[in-house]
């Protein structure tokens, strides 16, 4: 097995009184794709945002490349090689496509990705680089958000709900790029509500339920029943089962 690049140990994160992430541990190996799946409110996005530095850890540790990063600001983490593609894309709305990429490249690390390389990856971009990003479709905006993170040359790319609000065909096209990105030596930690999509692309799956780990494993070793159970929780089955309707 290759080296561990990101190690999360006993991590808990609170939003005020609410415990959003409860004692979660996992690690990400170099060149690996790990999918965090779970229902709405399971704590997936909070987990990713905490690794990116947007939330504080309440307890536990986040170690990147052997170094404790829990106290570092998001921008320092970008400099070390951790980039997040945030949920809802969050492009700079007053700017053109190219300007969005230029902002991403301003504090870039050395590495294979440049704006020119991103233009090769998404061949429709060069003709439209001077357009405002609000003129682009949802899928195109998602591509720009990925490009903006890639030009910083991360070693760990965090992808938060890429599929949100996109048509299935567009989602497939975007996920088709993931192996290409990994091929450049990037490890990927992704969060998905769309279980099928997350499972199909990942090397390993980590399921969260109400902030806690409910299932861990390789997609090939997991049955869909196991995943359903870990995704929705046992209680749901019991609540449907009494009148026998679902069995």
């Amino acid at each position, binding site marked *: 097995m290759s080296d561990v690049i990101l190690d999360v140990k006993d991590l808990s994160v609170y939003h005020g009184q609410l415990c959003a992430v409860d004692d979660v541990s996992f690690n990400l190996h170099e060149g690996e794709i790990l999918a965090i799946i779970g229902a709405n409110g399971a704590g997936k996005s909070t987990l990713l945002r905490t690794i990116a530095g947007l939330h504080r850890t309440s307890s536990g540790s986040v170690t990147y490349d052997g170094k404790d990063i829990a106290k570092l*600001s*998001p*921008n320092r983490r*970008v*400099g070390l090689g951790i980039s997040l593609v945030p949920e809802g894309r969050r*492009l700079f709305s007053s700017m053109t496509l190219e300007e969005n990429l230029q902002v991403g490249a*301003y504090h870039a690390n050395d590495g294979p990705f440049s704006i020119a390389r991103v233009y090769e990856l998404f061949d429709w971009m060069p003709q439209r680089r001077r357009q405002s990003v609000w003129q682009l479709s949802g899928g195109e905006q998602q591509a720009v958000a990925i490009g903006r993170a890639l030009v910083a040359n991360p070693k760990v790319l965090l992808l938060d709900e890429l599929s949100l609000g996109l048509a299935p065909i567009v989602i497939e096209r975007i996920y088709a790029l993931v192996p290409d990105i990994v091929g450049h030596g990037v490890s990927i930690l992704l969060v998905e509500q769309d279980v099928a999509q997350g499972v199909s692309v990942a090397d390993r799956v980590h399921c969260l339920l109400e902030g806690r780990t409910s299932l861990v494993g390789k997609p090939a070793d997991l049955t869909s029943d196991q995943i359903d159970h870990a995704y929705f929780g046992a209680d749901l089955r019991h609540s449907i089962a009494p009148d026998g309707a679902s069995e």
Partner: protein
Amino acid sequence: MIWLNIIIQGALVGGFYALFACGLSLMFGVLKVINLAHGDMAVVAGYVAVFLSPHLHIPGLWSFIVVVPIFGLVGYVLQRTLIQKSIDRDPFTTLLVTFGLSVVIENLLLEIYTANGQTVNIGSLISKSWHPASIIYVSYVSLGVLAVAVAVLGILQLFLSKTGTGRLIRAVADDREAAQLSGANYRHIFGIAAAIAFATVALAGIAYGMMTQFAPTSGGINLLFAFEAVVIGGIGSLWGTLIGGIALGVAQQFGAHINPEYQVLAGNILFLLVLAVRPQGLFGKKTALS
């Protein structure tokens, strides 16, 4: 001919309003801070120009060479300390803090320099003007201030659209969190934006001191005019601020032409009309309001 003169004089004073307002607009656009001490900062710049430049043997006209960099530095430091601390709490705190700053500055100036009026001494240049037609006099100082305002806005526009740092300032203004995720230290970017805002307000304060007398309490009325220029032009639009300043200046000259007492009133009426009919301002985007 009278009408032409109203427009010319209005445009000249409008240039000053725009120079005064662009820092206010930048602070609001990027930091989301309404700096209620903005007018007093300009007055401080005037005092520094009046009392520091003789010590350094710099003529009043050139005092900006010293004062503008000092103010840029003060802006950065003040932002990274006091203003950032209040941003970290909530928007209301920034209002209170800048209002408190305004009170402190006014009273310190009164204490040190008394309420006597001061002017930045530029010698005989003050009375020189271009006289193209019978009743039209274009003061060289006012024309110079308008030219400086256009140059400052032009340079600022170029800086924001063409340089990496300028793009980061816009990125932070658009979405602070996303800018952090792109590697930008937003506190540093805030500091740079505040430095630029303070540098421009220093220019405006010196220009004001050249054009007319100022006293410790002169900041308030100019802050009002700067607000009006920004709102008329549209928040977030630099050239809109220039047009807003000129529109305000012309309205005031028009009011003064009817009756000298109506000068400020006419400007306020234009401001209220724009707020009622086109709340996003002449050049603002509707989205800026939400």
